[in-house]
Every structure is written in C-alpha cells, then in structure tokens.
C-alpha cells in the first residue's frame, strides 16, 4: 500500500472537468485508489464520488493506492495533481 498527500493547485478545484481527467487516468491502472478528505473517503475511480468531495483550491487530500501497480499509479496521479489537473 502507498499513501500520499497532495494539495489542489488549480483554481476550480475538483469540479466536473478536472474530476473527469483524474478518473480517466485512474482507470488505466489496476490498483485500488481511495481519496480521503475531512473524514470522508471515496473511490478515486468514481466520477460522482470525486465530484462529491467538493475539493477546492488549496485543500489537502490523502491518497491511498493498493495493488500490484500501486507505485507507478501513485506517481502518475501525484504528478497530475502537481500539474494542476492539466486544467488551464
């Protein structure tokens, strides 16, 4: 299991479009992927779940990856957060 902490950088937070980008990337890997914020945990591969998090700019998220490709997956997902969800 791999655990990471990320901060939302892009202005709009995890709204519809960035949420879709995240879920699409997550779907490429086999490991389980969970996101925790303010005591709520959701499946990172579910768009409705990610939308429900209401993660705004500046908020901190705990990520948990569990599975065979957990390391590569964690790296790719953390990089996406660092790039501001590719949301221009």
């Amino acid at each position, binding site marked *: 299991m791999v655990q990471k902490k990320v901060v939302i950088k*892009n*202005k*709009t*937070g995890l*709204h*519809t*479009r960035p949420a*879709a980008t995240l*879920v699409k990337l997550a*779907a490429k890997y086999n490991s389980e992927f969970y996101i925790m914020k303010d005591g*709520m945990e959701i*499946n990172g*591969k*579910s*768009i*409705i*779940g990610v*939308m*429900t998090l*209401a993660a*705004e*700019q500046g908020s901190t998220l705990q990520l948990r990856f569990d599975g065979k490709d957990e390391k590569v997956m964690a790296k790719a997902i953390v990089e996406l957060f660092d790039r501001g969800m590719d*949301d*221009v």
Partner: protein
Amino acid sequence: MMYSKTVKNGMITITGVPASPGIVFGKSYCYLKKIIKVDKSSILKNAIPQEVVRLEHAIERSEYELKKIISFAANQVGKTEIKIFEAQILILQDIILLEGIKSRIKNELTNAEAVVDSEFSKYQSIMLNAKDEYLRERAHEVEDIKNRIIRNIQQEKLTSRIDKNVIVVSEALTAGDTILFSRNKILGFATDGGGITSHSTLLARSLQLPAVVGLKDITKNINHGDLLIVDGYDGIVIIRPNEETIEKFNYEKTRHDNFEKKLIPLRDQPATTLDNHTVSLTVNIEFMDEIPIMLKQGAQGIGLYRSEGVLIGRDSIPTEDEQFTEYEKLASTVAPHRIVIRTFDIGGDKIFSEQNDEENPSLGWRGIRISLDMPELFKTQLRAILRASTRNNVDILFPMVSGFEEIIEAKKYLSEIKDELQNKNIPFDKNIRVGSVIEIPSAALLAGDLARELDFLSIGTNDLLQFVLAVDRNNERVSKLFNRFNPGLLRLISQIITQTKSENKKIAMCGEMAGDPLATTLLIGLGLDEFSVIPDILPEIKKIIRTITLKDAKEIAKHALTLSTSAEIQNYLQDELQKIIPDIPLSH
C-alpha cells in the same frame, strides 16, 4: 418585485415577469416534473440476472436519450448547456457507481430502481449540504440523471410528445425541456420560476412564443386543460378568464398585431427623425442564439455584448482561444455592423466559488475592479478581444468604472497587449475604440474627464438608478421608489450627455431606459447618440424616432427637466407620445 395575484369569481390573474412578447389564448398543458414513485421490493435469487439486465438497459437507454438531446441541442442552444448533459453522460459511465449498484442488487436482493434511488440520493444529499454553491447546483443534475434512469427502468418513456396548440405551464423549464417542446407546436409558456435572462426565456424569444416567467405559484392555481391567456407584453397570465376579459385581451392583441404590422417595413430604414437627425439603434445581447432575432429586427449592430455569457455554466475561465472563437464568431456575424464587447462584469463569486460571501455584492468586488486586481484574467480577455477585431468593427467597454485612475490603468494594460501582439505580428485593429459604462454616480459626475480619455461612454441606467436613488430593486419594501423617471436621475443623465458631447465624444445608453418607448423622445431631445435595447422593442423605438423631429424633442426634454416628480414627468411624456403616435399600445 413585480409579482401579484388577484382572484375574482374563479378567474385568477397573476402578474410575473414578461419574458417574450405576444398575447396568446389556449388550453393549459401542465408539465409538472413527475415525482417518480419508487417502491422497494425484494427479489428472488434467480431473478438477479434479470434485474441486472433491466438496470443495464436503462443505463443504455438513458445514454441514448442524452446523446439525442445533445445532437438536437447543438443547433439550438449554446455549448455551455451541452456541457451539462455531457457531465450527466460521464456519471452514467461511472463503473464504480454501477458496480456498487449491481452488487447491492445481488447482496440485498432488492429491485434495481430502489437501489438506484438509494445510491444516487446518498451523493445528492452530500452535494446539497455542501458549502460550495457550484456543488449544490450539480445536485439537481444528479436528480435529473437519477430520475431518467429510474424512469427507464420502469420503462416509462419520457413524454416528449405533448398535445399540440397548448400553453405549457410548468414550475421551471430546463433547456432540455424547452428543446423537446420546440419540436411540438405549442403556443406559449408560463412558469413559476425563471428570470428574463434564463436560457429557456431566450429560446422562447427566438422561437417567438409569448412567455411569462416568475409567476411563483401558477402551477398550484391551474388545472390541466384550463383556458389561459398569456400576455407576454405586460407579464400577465389569466386563468379561466371570463367573456369580458377575453374580449378585452382580444382587443389588445389586435391592437398590438396591427401596430407590429406597421413596424415591419421599417426594418431596413435608418433611425432618423423627420428633420434628418440620425442616431444608432443597436441591441444588448449575451448569447450567440440571440443573433438571428437581432438581425431580423433590423439592428445596426450590438451596442452591448455581455461577455460573461462565455462563463455561464462553466467551471473554469475560458482560455484565450475559447474566448477568441466566441468573439470572432460574433464579430464576423454582425459585420459590417459594430459589436461593443463589455469586459467581464461579474462578482467575485462567479469566478472563485470560495469567495462568495460579500455582504453587499453590488457595491463589491466586480467588473473592472476584478479585472484590474487580476491582470492575467484581464489581459487574456483583452488579447482575445483584440484578436477578434481585425474587421475594425469591435469596440471595448469597461464596466463599473468609478473614476479616472481606473481608465488610465485599464488603458495601460490595453496598450501593453497591443505592443505584444504587434511584436508577434498578430493582426488587430490598432484604432480599436474604448469606452466606459457610466453606472456609478462618481463616474457620472466625472463624465467630461472620462470622455476626454475615451472614445465613447455608455450609460447603464439600471445600476445608475439603483446607486443614485439608493434603492435595491429586488427589495420589495423599497422597489416602488425604483423609477427611471426620477427627476434627479434625468438631470444627471442630461449632464452626462452634455459633458460627453462637449468633448466631441459619442454617448450611448445600454440600460433598460433606452428601450422604454416613453423615454425615447426625451433622450433624443437630450442629445443621446446611440440606443442599445433588447431586440424585441427595437422596431417600436425606431418608429418613435422616425415620427418625431429633433426640434420638438428638444422642447419636450427641456420641459421634462423642469418637472419635480416622477409622476409628473411620466404623465407628461405619455401625453406627448400619444399625441405623436395615437395607436401606440403602451404597457399598463
């Protein structure tokens, strides 16, 4: 503000907001959002596969319906509306959600619709409780998609085909509803909710169907099939009208129809007075969809394009290229006429969802204030506007200017971007005209100074009136004071016009007053150069201008400025207007 209701012998009259002009009589068709009844029932173990298939079919069917709405909508509404449906499709494709529903069907031996209802409601209630307004709005979309799936599980196909020749009465109409209705021959709309800028209103206007919105409780006062009159001129709806009322509205309808017939030949005529004084007559618009009706009405360009139209329904600021595409499309469509692009006039809450707690947003962080505080946002927009200006028909307008310094600062950014584009050899109009909205009293008093630095000014009467009178028009207790014929306001407007003209600059008006037939003669007399109005009213304003002389208008304006109360001014202007055009159907 305008809502009122009277009941007399079973006949109910409700006043709301006039959304699309015209008078229509017909039977009501109550399109109430069907409350879907979901019964929870147990299923047998061997019925699980069948239950899962029902779910899968319903999902497929829902996706098909949404895609069909999107393809139909592409020609009718803006891209932003389509995004809402696309987000719903993403939810339908959420494998985790779907697998969760399937496993609950199996483990709890419960019917598909009950599990769908419970799963979606879980997310919905989290969203509804969120602090974030954006997320609360998304909850309605989740409701929509939930209902669509459940309806499809129950194999109850969406009733998109409704009776012909009816007036649709509803709580509120979504863009999707309006699009479905537009394929049927319906006579008009009347809704509980909605404002004049909502998308279904714009659609009603472009389809030229009479509509009244903001009726609050019409759906609770009407039965399916009741006779109904919708008066989209005055925003009145009458349920179960008596003979006398029907006759009265028939007469009104004939009067309007006859008057409008006379306006058709004016379409290609200039807005010139009998003594050869010509002014510009342009329109205020916010969306691309309004272009066809604007052209049909014979407008000489767009006097106010509210660029925040590109932000609506989005969750991020559009990029420079996205903005450019929109502005370029508008500029090329209206060419050779002009388009005045007003830079974003929105509160901070619309851009950054976390900053929506201003106590007094209309006096707060909005318009040019945000633009100057957020140079990157401002520069991106200026770059997009300049790139769209290659036909030399684009003007820039700054909103919420309170003084000279803001103009200097905004112009500094503009020349910076001009240099940048020049260095990159990107073409643009080097002589692009720049103006400011005059809507803050300090700017009104400084009109001469501002005009010296700018190419034109445009009076925004709605905010100016609210600030000059210190009246919040949405506050029912004081809204009766909100009268555009207030003598103080008129004297201020007269002063703005005189000061601007003494600098030899053009003066326009883009507020509601420019489209009030009672004010037309007065404004011509005061020397206004351009009237920017909503497309519906344009032919009528032109008719008035073509029936008066500048000489008489000046006399009328001079006299109006001597009167001390709103009522005196209004009565005087009404008498004068009826002298010139006896058959003009004035609002009540």
